[in-house]
């Protein structure tokens, strides 16, 4: 028997529909889990326990009357730059602490109308930019959950909630999802209205979805977009994929080895996977993203930042100030190049089913950064849909993700492609967050697998008091097979140097927790998802 917190959204809807599950019981179980894990993980900015229980009771009454929505009874976490009626939208910005929304954002209203239950608001980096949120990675509390959708990814990974809303301007859905071992889906640009979402950079902002399975993100996508995605659309048609070499070259060794193994496994399942290059120089692509984002962030925030400079995070304030210096002629040239890049990508992706690349250049680094945006920002610039699947663990027990990208507007096709790949690749077991003796988990009966579970390496330098980065016993919640942790790469602790090389064009290191001493060598990238080398000397 599966614990209630282990249920996927798809399974919750099935059970509620069959009258096998009460939404009140489910919400109660999740609130208990949050109460136990939140002191360690800090995923939640605002928890609406009473409201969620009341909403759950309404869902149960509606189910009794046979009124079942497509997300009936599914609890959801909402990134704290997205409005939920009656709750504060703080966005990590102290002056907003009393700013309560009087109506739901469009996406929240759509989810609620489909029967979802809003459990609360999950932490974001400030205004969805790069200054780290308080949230810890459930796989290892010393590591970042990524950003900016930090709380969304951590809450889903920790099974506090089956589904969460995030946003992405550079890499803020795909990267945290990959770092936390969840599925993260950034649909095409403008797939839904962003009414009620605090902007960071208008022409780059995307609402995205995080869950534990492709089925669940498709379920939420359909509820919001009003579509009916057929995940089995390509069941009998193995895909044609291009494995992008530029990203393999910029990835750390364990990530590169993992992706090559993923490619082999997809080929073994029948896919055609050929190595290929981007149609555009990647450094130019990243430069265009940077300049457009920086200028838009400046336009959004300049006035407020001038009024509250000390309330802004160090990285965001720099982004705003530098963005104000960008000349109009350069910005328009970047916009011309953006059109050219998008057209080239459309053409290239018209000839295959998708691109295959790592989701991030590295596994989750330490918490002084939200990670490297290089592998996600290109798709935010051109508005193509992108999805990350959790496909393995590195030798430190940290999740590694596989990213798939399809042509603009092909959201349903990408979801079907992801479903095919997930079936072929399997998934990873969730992080082991259970106390040794307190959880009466029926799964513990699965003796052989359970005994193999505690793979945690006590020799790793991070101490993660509440969890072990271990493969869990085979949890029969997924149809897909379990994936064993990846073979140990040569370098178990990602070194700073390769990351710095990866991010050489645009990255910088940052020590947000350090005293604000002027130090040109220490840092100041200002990206929503900075490309940031990890600094071993974290305090």
């Amino acid at each position, binding site marked *: 028997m599966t614990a209630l917190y282990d249920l996927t959204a798809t399974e919750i809807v099935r059970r509620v529909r069959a009258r096998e599950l009460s939404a009140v019981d489910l919400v109660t179980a999740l609130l208990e889990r949050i109460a136990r894990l939140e002191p360690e993980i800090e995923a939640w900015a605002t928890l609406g326990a009473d409201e969620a229980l009341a909403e759950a009771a309404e869902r149960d009454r509606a189910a009794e009357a046979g009124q079942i929505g497509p997300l009936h009874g599914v609890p959801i976490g909402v990134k704290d730059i997205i409005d939920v009626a009656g709750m504060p939208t703080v966005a990590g910005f102290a002056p907003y602490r009393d700013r309560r929304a009087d109506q739901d954002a469009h996406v929240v209203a759509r989810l609620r109308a489909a029967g979802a239950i809003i459990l609360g608001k999950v932490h974001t980096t400030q205004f969805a930019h790069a200054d780290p949120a308080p949230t810890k990675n459930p796989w290892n509390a010393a590591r970042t959950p990524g950003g900016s959708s930090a709380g969304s990814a951590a809450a889903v990974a920790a099974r506090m909630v089956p589904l969460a809303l995030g946003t992405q301007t550079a890499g803020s859905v795909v990267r945290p999802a990959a770092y936390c071992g969840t599925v993260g889906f950034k649909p095409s640009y403008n797939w839904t209205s962003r009414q009620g979402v605090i902007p960071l950079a208008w*022409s780059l902002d995307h609402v995205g979805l995080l869950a534990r399975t492709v089925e669940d993100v498709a379920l939420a996508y359909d509820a919001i977009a009003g579509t009916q995605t057929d995940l089995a659309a390509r069941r009998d048609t193995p895909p044609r994929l291009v494995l992008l070499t530029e990203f393999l070259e910029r990835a750390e060794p364990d990530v590169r080895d993992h992706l090559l193994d993923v490619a082999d496994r997809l080929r073994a399942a029948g896919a055609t996977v050929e190595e290929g290059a981007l149609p555009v120089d990647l450094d130019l692509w990243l430069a265009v993203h940077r300049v457009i984002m920086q200028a838009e962030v400046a336009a959004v925030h300049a006035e407020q930042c001038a009024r509250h400079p000390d309330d802004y995070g160090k990285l965001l304030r720099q982004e705003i100030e530098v963005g104000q210096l960008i000349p109009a002629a350069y910005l328009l040239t970047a916009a*011309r190049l953006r059109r050219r890049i998008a057209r080239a990508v459309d053409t290239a992706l018209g000839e295959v089913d998708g691109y295959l690349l790592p989701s991030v250049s590295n596994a989750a680094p330490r918490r002084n950064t939200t990670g490297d945006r290089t592998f996600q920002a290109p798709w935010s610039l051109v508005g193509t849909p992108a999805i990350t699947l959790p496909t393995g663990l590195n030798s430190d027990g940290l999740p590694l993700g596989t990213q798939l990208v399809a042509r603009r507007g092909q959201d349903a096709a990408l979801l079907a492609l992801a479903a095919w790949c997930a079936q072929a690749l399997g998934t990873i077991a969730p992080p082991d967050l259970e106390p040794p003796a307190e959880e009466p988990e029926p799964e513990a009966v699965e003796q052989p697998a359970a005994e193999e579970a505690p793979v945690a390496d006590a020799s790793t330098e991070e101490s993660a008091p509440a969890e072990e980065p271990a493969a869990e016993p085979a949890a029969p919640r997924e149809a897909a097979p379990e994936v064993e942790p990846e073979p140990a790469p040569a370098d178990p602790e990602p070194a700073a140097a390769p990351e710095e090389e990866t991010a050489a064009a645009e990255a910088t290191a940052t020590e947000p927790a350090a005293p604000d001493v002027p130090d040109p060598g220490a840092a100041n990238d200002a990206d929503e998802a900075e490309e940031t080398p990890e600094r071993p000397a974290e305090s």
Partner: protein
Amino acid sequence: MKLDSHLSEKKVLAQLRRQAAETFGPMRTFEMAEALEITAAALARIAAAPLDLTDDAPDTSGVDAGGTA
């Protein structure tokens, strides 16, 4: 700063620094030294990209499509 495909990254950076000092003062300019360097590199790369007079018009995605609505 003029848009010039022959402008070196170093010269772009020098101009950005000068503007930053005038706008935000020398201390802030010093604090955001690395951000200025990265942006200067991006601007120089963009300026150097070959674009003919009649090539692509600027992309206005989002705005054209009612992106913030």
